[in-house]
């Protein structure tokens, strides 16, 4: 399904797949923030129509991968292919075209806090589509219904609970029917019921629209339930494969990371 190389360290991976299967592909990416090196020749891929989850500790560069894919940051070297287009070589205006294919659910929602829920969802359609006000309103309500919300059009993001905010942000991310959905920590700070709800929604979106879903998460139980493929960032190396395969890994770092008991203990602490 995918291949990963980083630091030429030993890896535990499934057989590398053909690059052609990959909807998103990172090749030999070097990335630093000032003097802090995040990636050194990172190569990895995310298959079309699948749910891929990026796991790793804080500061391991999980969100950086999503931001690279979205063209929000540029690597020092390497290429990032999104649906066949190298986003590292595009101007901001050209990136706008590529981003029509992308939806992104930010960790904090990233909704415009001075806009109502309705305006937040209507904005991308008002900007790009030539839809009538009536059609926009219908689309907004359909989007909200899809994420299980109604009668909150007039509310501001600050008036929503964490779970509702995340669902509105999800509705905004998918309202233009992107083919790739990037999710940055969709479960962080949510109660178990909300986590379950978001998890179900993401699976449903993936199945219903065939969207490629690339998700960053700390939440191991959800990851193991949802993912078709897991990319685990461990310091100076990466490990990847299907969740079932990673659970059987004899690598102590992998086993420790995926140990739900230890995750639970950390969360409670």
């Amino acid at each position, binding site marked *: 399904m995918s291949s990963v190389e980083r630091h030429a360290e030993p890896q535990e991976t499934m057989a590398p797949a053909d690059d052609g299967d990959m909807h998103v592909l990172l090749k030999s990416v070097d990335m630093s923030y000032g003097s802090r090196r995040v990636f050194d020749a990172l190569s990895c891929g995310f298959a079309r129509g699948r749910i891929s989850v990026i796991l790793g500790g804080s500061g391991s560069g999980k969100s950086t991968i999503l*931001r690279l894919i*979205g063209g*929000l940051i540029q690597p020092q070297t390497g290429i990032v292919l999104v649906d066949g287009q190298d986003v590292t070589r595009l101007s*901001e205006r050209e*990136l*706008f*075209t590529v*981003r*029509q294919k*992308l*939806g*992104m659910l*930010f*960790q*904090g929602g*990233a*909704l*415009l*806090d001075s806009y109502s829920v309705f305006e937040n969802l209507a*904005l*991308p359609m008002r*900007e*790009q589509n030539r839809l009538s006000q009536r059609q926009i309103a219908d689309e907004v309500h359909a989007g909200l219904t899809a994420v299980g919300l109604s009668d909150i059009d007039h509310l501001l993001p600050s008036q929503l609970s964490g779970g509702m905010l995340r669902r509105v942000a999800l509705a*905004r991310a998918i309202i*233009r029917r992107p083919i790739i959905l990037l999710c940055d920590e969709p479960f962080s700070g949510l109660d178990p019921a909300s986590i379950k709800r978001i998890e179900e929604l993401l699976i449903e979106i993936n199945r219903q629209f065939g969207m490629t879903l690339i998700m960053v998460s700390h939440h191991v139980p959800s990851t193991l339930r949802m993912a078709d493929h897991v990319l685990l960032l461990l310091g100076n190396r990466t490990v990847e494969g299907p969740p079932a395969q990673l659970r059987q890994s004899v690598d102590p770092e992998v086993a420790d990371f995926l140990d739900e008991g230890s995750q639970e203990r950390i969360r409670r602490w």
Partner: protein
Amino acid sequence: MVNPIGEVGYRSLRFVRQLGGMAVFATAMLRAALTPPLRVTLFVREMQKLGVLSLLIICVSGLTVGMVLGLQGYHTLVRFGAARSLGAVVGLSLIRELGPVLTALLVTGRAGSAATAEIGAMVATEQLDGLRMLSIDPVHLVATPKALALISIMPLLSALFIVCGLFGGYLVGVGMMHLDPGSYLTSLRSAIDYPSDITCSVFKSLVFGVLLAIIATYRGFTSAPTSEGVSASTTATVVIASVTVLMFDFIITALWGV
């Protein structure tokens, strides 16, 4: 130990880089202002937020400055037997200098800092990145309406400041010092060179508005995505814009030949 030459070089390079960044950002805003869609609703909303909510502080400050000018001017002029010229002193001071400059400084503190803080908070909460991912240019949607509003409100608020100041001077001169109202108004009218003084005043306000608009929005966009970063950008806006306004005031005054 810090190498002083290296430090000077580093700071010079950073200064030049920031100037370049600001020029590029200003060009992007200009292009955005000329590119449809025209964001009339947002512009009006920003005018209300940045301009209308500054009315009180402008009126009170203008009135107070005019009253102080009236008092100081009267006590100085009366020594030379020229108390009748109080209207001219108050009027010229306000129209040529104090009106545009003090308005710019007040708007910098009230509206410029607010614009930077708002944009900086949007950076910190990834709202601008959210717009980029929706293929919406944040310079077009967020920065340009704010910048145009800041440029538009400056001459209007400056005019209001001057009117309030003239009224403050009148209150002190006529109400407290018992000058003849006719003398006050006549000296005011005869001292003002129309259209030169008025044009200079409006021109200064517009230049200050452009400077503040660029500095405030650029600082917001380049703010570090932390609460400390937003705070630092807001402070930088007030400091840099204030100093720049004073420097440009001197340059314009010198070039205008006043």
